[in-house]
């Protein structure tokens, strides 16, 4: 149970930790006050508690597909906020947009990932014999996840600002594309869009069960058996993120973020 808790919590924490660390690093590179990022993390944590507390009612919504609908909306919000952020990051006059999009992304990511951890740990409140190992495993998993987040934070802020921004944009684009793929999966699971056979199967090379599979899932939205719809959604999201990222600032964008040449 200890190892299982480590893996479950690590997977959830890793996704949130990556988003938080990338956005914090971007804020650092762009000299934005940290309060703009810490506040939405706290708001997201509170909303995660509310979501987790009402999971039974949410699940029963719309004939039993409420969970899929809420998760799709959460993933959709993360994708929209991330795309807006990618498009605005090079525009110095778009500071407010960057802050709002970053805050939205952080709060939504916290709700999505933290709610599942709360549901998981809370489920063991009724199984006292397992609770201590679940808590221990959860702390270890959270610790590893945070450590990886800290690693990427210092990796980005330690680079030349322009390279740090580039790396953060690439990482955000991949996470965003993974979120699109996951949202499509939820819609198929709820039978709101047609489900098809997988386009390919790479589970023999990298299993989604494995630690590497879980890491790749968090980093690049790795899916061993994606459907054509998921692969198309993933590709289109990457393409859109790329187009937004390579947009040149308009001529009137005279000032550049501090440290970015």
């Amino acid at each position: 149970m200890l190892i299982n808790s480590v893996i479950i919590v690590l997977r959830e924490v890793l996704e949130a930790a990556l988003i938080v660390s990338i956005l914090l690093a971007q804020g650092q590179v762009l000299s934005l006050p940290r309060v703009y990022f810490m506040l939405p993390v706290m708001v997201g944590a509170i909303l995660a508690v509310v979501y987790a507390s009402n999971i039974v009612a949410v699940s029963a919504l719309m004939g039993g597909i409420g969970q899929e609908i809420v998760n799709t909306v959460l993933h959709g919000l993360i994708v929209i906020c991330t795309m807006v952020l990618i498009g605005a990051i090079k525009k110095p006059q778009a500071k407010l947009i960057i802050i709002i999009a970053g805050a939205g992304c952080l709060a939504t990511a916290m709700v999505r990932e933290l709610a599942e951890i709360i549901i998981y740990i809370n489920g063991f409140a009724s199984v006292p014999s397992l609770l201590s190992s679940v808590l221990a495993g959860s702390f270890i998993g959270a610790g590893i996840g945070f450590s990886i987040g800290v690693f990427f934070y210092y990796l980005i802020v330690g680079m030349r600002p322009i390279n740090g921004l580039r790396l953060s944009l690439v990482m955000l684009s991949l996470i965003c594309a993974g979120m699109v793929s996951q949202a499509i999966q939820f819609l198929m699971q709820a039978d709101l869009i047609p489900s098809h056979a997988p386009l390919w199967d790479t589970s023999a090379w990298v299993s989604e069960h494995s630690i590497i599979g879980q890491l790749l899932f968090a980093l690049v939205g790795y899916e061993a058996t994606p459907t054509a719809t998921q692969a198309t959604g993933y590709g289109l999201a990457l393409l859109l993120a790329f187009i937004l990222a390579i947009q040149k600032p308009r001529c009137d964008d005279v000032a550049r973020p501090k440290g970015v040449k």
Partner: protein
Amino acid sequence: MRLLLVVALLLSWGPVMAMPSIEIIIRNHLFYPSELTIAADTKVKLIIVNQDASAEEFESYELNREKVIPGHSKGIVFVGPLAPGTYPFFGEFFPKTAQGHIIVK
């Protein structure tokens, strides 16, 4: 226009109404039944009833499905249409005991 809407609704509801559904019970962190057999190329509605007090997450990498089923509640997961084969599923919160598979023929 109204007639078109009615026809469209009937067409969209037709397959749903005809869709087979199978109930899976989670009890003492085990799936009952743990082996299901369904027809190939058919969409199936799985009704997962969690009779335990603790939550469970129905998960299958092969089916691309994951859903949290809170304690003493039920959830719905649609699977298929699938090609013939065996598709394992498990409870992510209790993976050692909560295991099962769907055989598609």
